[in-house]
């Protein structure tokens, strides 16, 4: 008897499937735009006008960093909660409600961005995914973002009420690990999105509607990063969950330590948010002391990731040894390298180890002068969200899509090729990006070819760097196409009886070894809130004190939609004269 997820929870499987496909669609569009960007910047192929580059980049950032990741996340967490609690969601209408809300939000944001290149849409949102005021998008962009975020809040509420329902039936049991992970993640998501939601609803939206006529750019920026760092952990947590609860099983072993997994997620709940100022190391208007506090928190946030590295690798080693692997490192050969799900996740983890290094550099307060806003940063996060997360998700899809559809994966070997090509492509692209950042090549720049100076690499040349980026981007796009092909063909296939059971990894050291206090979500939320108050009260107070809640009469800028560039330059010059 087949016992896949779709057999256990047919109704939930439909929601998860919808969420996954929303996610894949975003990945398909966003990834293709990535290729366009890479080729344009490196001057290999320029099929758009330079100004359109920024519309494309806005779409790439929003679709991949927000839409792709979070739709996948809600799918995975819904799977994790229902599977580990062994019960369905409380009310499917509510579930479809938040899913629909996220879709509507995405469409609003997407259309307003599209307005930047389609004249028929009288909107514009060329503000990149960070939407720093006083760059001003169409209000629909803000409204869409808020709807999307509120949708995720409701999703979180859905997991919580399902857990509470389970709790009343199982008052004495430990929270199953996947549910524990989903809930702690949801808690810090609530904590961090509060900042950006307030920023949009109270400051930015009224300003874009003309209700108030000014913003304080440093304030809205600080509120963005209050959310903006935690969001990177939000993307990452479902990948971590998969590494903890899937990888050990795929390797043929058990999770090395359930208690440590809980400790790790508690640390993320505590430290994800009071770190955002590390994105503002080079901002004026924030005292050095606050930056140092943010760095301290950030550095300690390395701890859960370093612990994860150990626990996950030890779990894989356990599997390899159970599969007959021997020797100090010889066991590596016994891992199931032919399985695209395993190999994809393992390679994603390997890249995350490399990303860990560049992340440590980014965390180091004063060394930020070297790398801030250079292509180094872009290289870094294509390893984190662009691979650790994205490749884990793609690999996971090879397991999950059969689970939620009951259809067998169309082509496993192609899946293996796909994850390998992504790995190779990203090695080229990210490495070249990192290197170029060190000699000052800026990020977010359509044509980084300047008139009065040239970049001077210590080793290699700009041409060679550009070639690597273009090659890497091409490989990535090929890989992406293979992934989508496999997904589509799988969906077109018929139902199969060969789907493995819906299970996740057992543990070597189980929850019974974990102190009960770890499951005290109220306690951890309270401490997390206190840490946030410590880290943010004074900086925010001094920013508001110096620049006012609404700033000194700062208008919105949409540089320049209707007017040609010459016009704008002229008007700026007039102001100067």
């Amino acid at each position, binding site marked *: 008897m087949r016992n896949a997820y779709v057999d256990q929870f047919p109704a939930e499987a439909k929601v998860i499937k919808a969420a996954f496909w929303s996610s894949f669609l975003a990945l398909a569009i966003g990834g293709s735009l990535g290729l366009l960007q890479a080729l344009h910047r490196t001057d290999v192929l320029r099929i758009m006008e330079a100004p359109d580059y920024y519309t494309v980049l806005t779409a790439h950032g929003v679709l991949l960093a927000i839409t792709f990741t979070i739709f996948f996340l809600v799918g995975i967490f819904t799977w994790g909660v229902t599977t580990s609690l062994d019960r369905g969601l409380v009310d499917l209408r509510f579930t479809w409600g938040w899913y629909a809300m996220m879709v509507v939000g995405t469409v609003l944001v997407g259309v307003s961005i599209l307005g930047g290149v389609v004249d028929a849409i009288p909107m514009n949102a060329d503000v990149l995914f960070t939407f720093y005021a006083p760059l001003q998008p169409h209000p629909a962009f803000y409204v869409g973002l808020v709807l999307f975020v509120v949708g995720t809040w409701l999703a979180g509420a859905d997991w919580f009420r399902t857990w509470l329902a389970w709790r009343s039936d199982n008052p004495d049991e430990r929270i199953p690990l996947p549910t524990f992970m989903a809930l702690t993640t949801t808690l810090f998501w609530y904590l961090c999105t509060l900042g950006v939601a307030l920023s949009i609803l109270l400051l930015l939206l009224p300003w874009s509607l003309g209700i108030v006529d000014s913003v304080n750019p440093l304030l809205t920026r600080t509120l963005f990063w209050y959310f903006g760092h935690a969001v990177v952990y939000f993307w990452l947590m479902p990948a971590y969950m998969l590494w903890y609860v899937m990888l050990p099983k795929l390797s043929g*072993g058990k999770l090395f330590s359930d208690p440590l997994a809980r400790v790790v997620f508690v640390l993320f709940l505590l430290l994800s948010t009071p770190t955002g100022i590390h994105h503002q190391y080079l901002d004026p208007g924030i005292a050095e002391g606050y930056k140092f506090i943010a760095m301290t928190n950030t550095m300690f946030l390395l701890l859960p990731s370093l612990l994860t590295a150990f626990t996950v690798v030890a779990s894989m080693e356990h599997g390899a040894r159970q599969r007959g692997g021997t020797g100090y490192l010889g066991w590596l050969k016994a891992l*199931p390298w032919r399985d695209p799900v395993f190999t994809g996740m393992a390679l994603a983890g390997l890249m995350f180890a490399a990303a860990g290094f560049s992340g440590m550099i980014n965390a180091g307060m004063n*060394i930020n002068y070297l790398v801030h806003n250079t292509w180094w940063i872009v290289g870094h996060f294509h390893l984190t969200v662009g691979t650790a997360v994205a490749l884990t998700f793609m690999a996971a899809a090879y397991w999950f899509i059969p689970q939620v559809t009951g259809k067998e994966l169309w082509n496993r070997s192609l899946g293996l090729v796909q994850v390998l090509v992504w790995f190779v492509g990203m090695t080229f692209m990210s490495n070249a990006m990192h290197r170029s950042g060190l000699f000052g090549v800026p990020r977010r720049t359509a044509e980084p070819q300047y008139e009065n100076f040239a970049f001077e690499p210590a080793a290699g040349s700009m041409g060679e760097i550009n070639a690597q980026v273009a090659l890497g981007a091409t490989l990535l796009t090929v890989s992406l196409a293979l992934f989508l092909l496999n997904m589509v063909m799988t969906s077109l296939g018929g139902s199969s009886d060969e789907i493995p059971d819906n299970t996740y990894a057992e543990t070597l050291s189980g929850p019974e070894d974990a102190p009960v206090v770890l499951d005290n979500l109220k306690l951890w939320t309270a401490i997390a809130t206190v840490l946030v108050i410590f880290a943010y009260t004074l900086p925010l107070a001094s920013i508001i004190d110096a620049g006012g809640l609404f700033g000194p009469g700062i208008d919105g800028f949409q540089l320049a939609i209707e007017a040609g560039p010459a016009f704008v330059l002229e008007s700026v010059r007039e102001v100067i004269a």
Partner: protein
Amino acid sequence: MASATETGETDQVREIGHEEYDPVGTAILITIYFLILVLLWVFMYFVEFLGNGPTVVGAVLTVVGLA
């Protein structure tokens, strides 16, 4: 049901329990990673960063200069 292993799917040849398992390989790998991190950090900070030309210095120096 939730966490039954799929022994059928994996090619397990032996069962290793909690007490008898020492992740030696993991310890080796993680030690290598540790060394790489330390070396790269030192290189990045002292060569790439401090060697990268003029740097923003404290106002403390300015005050001393003015005095």
